């Protein structure tokens, strides 16, 4: 894997086993980390992210009159840095000799290096993008991406993978003619957000014209999904979530049922990518998580969020991602990087974590469908 680093995280009673390997070497002897401590630190980071989300709700355009001297933003960022540093210290223990070897390897990694993390259980999903190594009190002005310079998300290309998932590399390149994209959307939230989507509204409309279009009820979406199990799929979900349940306007589904529906009668030779555009969709947790949905052969993984995220932002981030994947010919990794670099989506675009194979892409961009042609098709079908 070139200049990258691979970490494996496995639960073991009250510990989390961390193994690492660099440049395709066999893995290290495990480091034993305190599971409870990591869970608390991860929860603290997610809380700090929620505070940032709330800040954006009250000051979306970063106007100084709403936050004189950017004091409120500085406080939230400082808290996030502190929590990120605490997570780092729970992960990499300075006075522990086996940890020191890993610390020096991480320090030696170049900026932009790939960090692959393999998780075998819900209990080991950590918001590693928000591990912080930098100056907590670094001065803050108008909110900008530069404020996140000390976080791992800025330093590494982080890919988290769930054990048991994945499709062979030959299946990461998908023929657009055989691709079926399914949108399972929360009707009320889409309608509420739509006026605020700007140019993304048109993009979303275009995207949902692609087969097999948009559904606003999980049962309907489930039936549509069952009909495309022998095709390459992207399943895009925009719903309320607490990391355990997905809630649509008039239906909901728990993570275990969601997983069963997605895996049922699935032909592993046709890859599936999940975009779970909901709050806390990769946060893991006790009693199950949405991550398990991607833990099946043939599933290229999922992209989801580490914390609560405003609906408008979630829809815009998801739309950009899908647009670049479908119409711009970008790979998932490139599309994600572009979305996370978009200034108008900052800072909530940083909440997304890639639990999927970054080289997933279409062999060529999809031809956009003219809405008028689509209506004619529907009339003819009727």
């Amino acid at each position, binding site marked *: 894997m070139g200049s990258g680093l691979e970490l494996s995280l*496995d*639960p*073991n*009673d009250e*510990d989390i*086993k961390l*193994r690492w390997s660099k440049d395709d*070497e*066999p*893995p*290290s*002897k*495990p480091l*034993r980390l305190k599971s409870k401590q990591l869970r608390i630190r991860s929860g603290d980071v997610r809380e700090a992210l929620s505070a940032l989300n709330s800040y954006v709700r009250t000051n979306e355009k970063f106007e100084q009159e709403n936050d004189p001297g950017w004091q409120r933003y500085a406080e939230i960022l400082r808290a996030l840095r502190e929590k990120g540093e605490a997570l780092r210290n729970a992960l990499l223990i300075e006075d522990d000799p086996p940890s020191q*070897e890993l610390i020096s390897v991480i320090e030696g990694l170049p900026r932009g290096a790939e960090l692959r993390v393999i*998780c*075998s*259980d*819900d*209990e080991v999903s950590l918001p590693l993008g928000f591990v912080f190594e930098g100056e907590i009190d670094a001065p803050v002005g108008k909110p900008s991406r530069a404020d996140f310079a000390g976080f791992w998300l800025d330093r590494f290309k982080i890919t988290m993978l*769930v*054990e*048991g*998932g994945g499709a062979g590399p030959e299946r990461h390149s998908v023929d657009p003619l055989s691709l079926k994209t399914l949108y399972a959307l929360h009707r009320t939230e889409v309608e509420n957000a739509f006026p605020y989507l700007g140019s993304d509204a048109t993009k979303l409309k275009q995207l949902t014209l692609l087969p097999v279009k948009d559904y606003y009820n999980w049962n309907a979406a489930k039936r549509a999904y069952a009909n495309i199990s022998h095709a390459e799929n992207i399943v895009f979900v925009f719903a309320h979530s607490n990391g355990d349940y997905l809630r649509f306007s008039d239906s909901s589904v728990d993570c*275990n049922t969601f*997983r069963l529906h997605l895996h049922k009668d699935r032909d592993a030779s046709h890859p599936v990518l999940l975009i779970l555009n909901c709050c806390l969709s990769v946060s893991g947790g*006790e*009693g*199950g998580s949405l*991550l*398990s949905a991607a*833990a*099946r*052969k043939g599933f290229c993984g999922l992209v989801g969020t580490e914390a609560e995220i405003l609906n408008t932002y979630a829809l815009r981030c998801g739309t950009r991602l899908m647009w670049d994947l479908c119409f711009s010919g970008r790979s998932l990794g490139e599309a994600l990087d572009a979305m996370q670099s978009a200034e108008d989506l900052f800072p909530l675009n940083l909440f997304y974590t890639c639990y999927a194979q970054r080289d997933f892409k279409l062999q060529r961009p999809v031809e956009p469908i003219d809405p008028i042609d689509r209506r004619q098709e529907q009339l003819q079908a009727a």
Partner: protein
Amino acid sequence: MDTLPIVAQWPKHPYRGLDFYRETDALLFRERAKDVEECAAILLGFGVKILILQGSSGSGKSSFLRAGLIPQLKQGGRRNFFLSGKDSVIRCTCDPLPEIACSLLDKFDSRHLVPDTAYRRDERDGDVLTDVAVCEELRQKLALALSGPREELAEILVEALVEICGDLPGKLILVLDQAEEVLTLTPGGRAGNEAAAAFFRFLEDVYLRNIDMRLVVALRTEYYGRFRDELRISDDRLSRRPRSGGVEPYLLRPLREKNALLGIIDAPTLARRENGPPSITSHSRED
């Protein structure tokens, strides 16, 4: 015709008769590649702790474990570790915990747990996976507990496994065959038998404490329901862990298809065929 890509030597005695296949017979083991692949993927999947392999009597569970699943789990760069001797399988009997404990003691006595595939690269991996003093303490506790109440043995086994699995640079895979014996040879089942109760408690604790190991439990289909009933992983008591229970069943169906059976009959002759087709093959096939 399917084959398993296992690097192994051709067995000295390729005609197994009614005996089950062993790990050394992996090259003979045919027509189960899909089952083997699926089973391995389920076992090593996200959040899975226990795989219950069920099949009717004579469906080939014992051969499947030894000549199919285990070689698959050992191949490539995988870091899966096994207890027990030559075939990495522990027969349950009506009192499985001492069987497991003795397998573990054997490993302690050899002072290391290393996978069969060569994984040692440098000192970082190390072949002594647990501190020697810790190993000795666990060994003594286990040896002592063998003669005590089974409930206590279960607790000490769990403690030992937590310690060992914490140091393994991979997963420990415990393979238990003929698990129906826990039920058939103890008339009272869990309620009426200390050994059975302690065994099920052990399985529950492995799950509940989320030890970094995987259990494969093979048993006859007709005992699957009762076994699952005894294994109370869906209890509210265990709600801290995922509701899916970390238990996955796999039904091994008997091979009935003619070409598959012919493939199996042909397999032992393959090595000889390079030097000319043996006449016995056609006779066997006709039979």
